């Protein structure tokens, strides 16, 4: 039985995504403990292999079938690699790619799969895994017994720095990049990519954003909106608002969060000067993390927020802009 940990790298627009570094960092830790290697599988963008110096071996392919993400081609390539490498553990994310691949691997390899993983540890011969369950209301402690396993990990749970070669003190990979021989693997594919549509810039869908900056009457006047907009721009987040601001015509209706507006579930909801009326809470209380800034320590928004502060929203905005723009 091998002790290797294999990571499926994900990339977008010519860049490796953060979650890939998070997984590679974690894989390094687990492999070092068990005396195995870290293998990274990089499909499509072979040129990014040198950024994966924390892995021992980067297995690449530039086969046209995986030039853009093709669910079935990725799945076949991964099954092919995993069957040959027989790692102890495969790590993917829980993104679209991770969902497609981890489930298919679980059936074809086969191996037990834990999804929505927030933590993985070795526990003797087994793996002890913590998963987020029931919309984050509970955590599940799972043991993956048996000689091999797959974990689909939620992005943002491990530090990405551990997986970046420049930070982790590993130099460029030399000679450890291997080209995969995928001859025949993609024969008779039932899926082909007809088109790739990039999201349109400009039109704002506050329900699709991972990070939302949301403002309420605490900003006082329309002119002050600019300051908050600057913060939102710096963070690359859309600006949302409570209803009174929409009523005033300061922002379009499509930015209204709440009962008579939209329901949002971003990873982080930054609420500035919003009191937390029930009608507003209805639209945002299921955000993963709520950070609330309100000068009134008794404001109901603090009952649903994860983190709170009573500093003035303008001071906070200034400080945040400074830090983010650095």
């Amino acid at each position, binding site marked *: 039985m091998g002790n290797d940990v294999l990571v499926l790298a994900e990339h977008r627009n010519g860049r490796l995504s953060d979650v890939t570094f998070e997984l590679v960092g974690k894989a390094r830790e687990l492999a070092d403990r068990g005396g195995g290697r870290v293998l990274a599988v990089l499909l499509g963008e072979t040129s990014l292999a040198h950024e994966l110096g924390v892995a021992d071996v980067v297995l690449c392919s530039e086969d046209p079938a995986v030039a853009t993400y093709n669910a079935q081609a990725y799945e076949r390539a991964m099954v092919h690699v995993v069957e040959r490498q027989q790692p102890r553990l495969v790590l993917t994310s829980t993104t679209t790619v991770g969902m497609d691949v981890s489930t298919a691997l679980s059936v074809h390899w086969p191996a037990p799969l834990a999804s929505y993983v927030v933590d993985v540890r070795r526990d003797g011969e087994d793996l002890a895994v913590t998963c987020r369950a029931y919309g984050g209301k509970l955590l599940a402690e799972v043991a993956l017994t048996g000689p091999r396993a797959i974990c689909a990990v939620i992005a943002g749970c491990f530090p990405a720095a551990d997986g970046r070669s420049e930070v982790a003190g590993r130099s460029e990979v030399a000679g450890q990049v291997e080209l995969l021989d995928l001859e025949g693997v993609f024969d008779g594919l039932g899926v082909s990519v007809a088109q790739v549509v990039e999201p349109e810039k400009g039109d704002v869908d506050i329900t699709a954003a991972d990070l939302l900056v949301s403002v309420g*009457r605490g900003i006082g006047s329309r002119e002050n909106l600019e300051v908050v907009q600057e913060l939102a721009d710096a963070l690359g987040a859309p600006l949302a608002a409570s209803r*009174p601001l929409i*009523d005033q015509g300061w922002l379009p*209706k499509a930015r209204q969060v709440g*009962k*008579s*507006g939209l329901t949002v579930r971003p990873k982080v909801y930054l609420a500035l000067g919003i009191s937390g*009326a*029930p*009608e507003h809470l209805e639209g945002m209380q299921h955000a993963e993390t709520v950070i609330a800034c309100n000068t009134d320590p008794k404001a*109901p928004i603090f009952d649903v927020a994860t983190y709170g502060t009573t500093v003035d929203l303008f001071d906070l905005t200034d400080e945040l802009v400074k830090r983010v723009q650095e």
Partner: protein
Amino acid sequence: MPIGGRKQPPTAVELEHATVTSPLSGREWELPGMWNRMFEQRVEWDFTTEGFEKIGSLEGGESLEWCYGCGKCVPVCPVDLVGEYGPRKIHRKVQTGLDLFTSDDLWLCTTCMNCLRVCPKEVDMVKVMPAVREVAVAEGQVPGELADVFEKTFRYGNALGENPRRRHAWTRDAGVDVRVLASDPRPVDVLFYVEDYWSYHPRGMQAARSFARVATALGVDFAILGPEEKTIGDSQRLAGEKGLFEALMEDVVATLDRYEFQRIVTPDPHGFNALVKEYPKRGHRYDVLHYTQLLAPLVDRIEWRKELDCTVTFHDPCYLGRHNGEYDAPRTLLRAIPGVRLVEMGRCRENGYCCGGGGGGMWLDGLTANHTSERLSERRVREAVESGADVLAVCCPYEVSRFEDGAKSTGNDQLQVRDIIELVDEAMGGGGG
């Protein structure tokens, strides 16, 4: 209908001047306005009967057609005050081809009944609108915000989508014991039917606690259903979900059958309306009181401990006042409170303005905003301020949240919105909040 509810200038249907060619002689005749009226298309000719046939065939939809255009209803319609509405306008639009079943106009009526009060032809929008809405709802033509409330009501038995098991969470901080029938099913005098907004909305919960304290102090023997309570759902019915209302009624009646009580008391004029008018139609008869009707006869027994010193104006809930004729019980309570000076707003009692929450309006804020220049609740808040009051007193659970929001958005933060029971409680020295 103009966005923002601006009034439309009338369009003339007479010409100042016309030229008519004789089909016989070919000669042209110049005609002055007074004369040419009969040659222009007249209102009576450019209409279609299709809309009325469709609406009139529905049970409850018959009366729209009876309108003879006298126009009395339009100036009393609360929606027309901030937009373009009223039975006569709807009648005329349907006459000229509007498909009411798919129009936003279908959802603007709050079923406040002020038009019916003045209509010589008894055109009854309180029946017409729900009948047409029922068809629209069955066809899935229902605004998203409203559909969401229907779904929540069906799933959880309350419009807010709150956990049914937390229905009596408000009792915890009431400061007095509130009996829950499920755990203590002994017979009781008053079954207190709390309804949704007093059970779950933070401001409503405060009022519920006030009621519990006041009723306890007056020695009223009361109990609640707690987790077994489901909304009566009268506004859902008027918004077109009759099936939902009936499903709820089956559950409510089955629950009520399990307990022994003398009368039902509720703070919600909407639930009150259904218990008084709809339930008996299906053979379910109860002795039902609004909470102001329970307390008004008891005012002499109240021991007042505090003088409030404020000027109060009172907003008549449509479903207590116009729909059920109770204007005095709330006023009796207010007048009895030491230090309260009661002033009336211009529109009060029979001609009371509507808060905008009835008939589903409570859950159509987004849609309504597209057709009105301001919210009905905002309009009403400004009337309250003009009356010189510092407190706007209400006795319908929908209203506190609507008016408080209206006070903020019109920049009248100084106006306090209080349920009558909160004022009574405060003057009796209770928690006051």
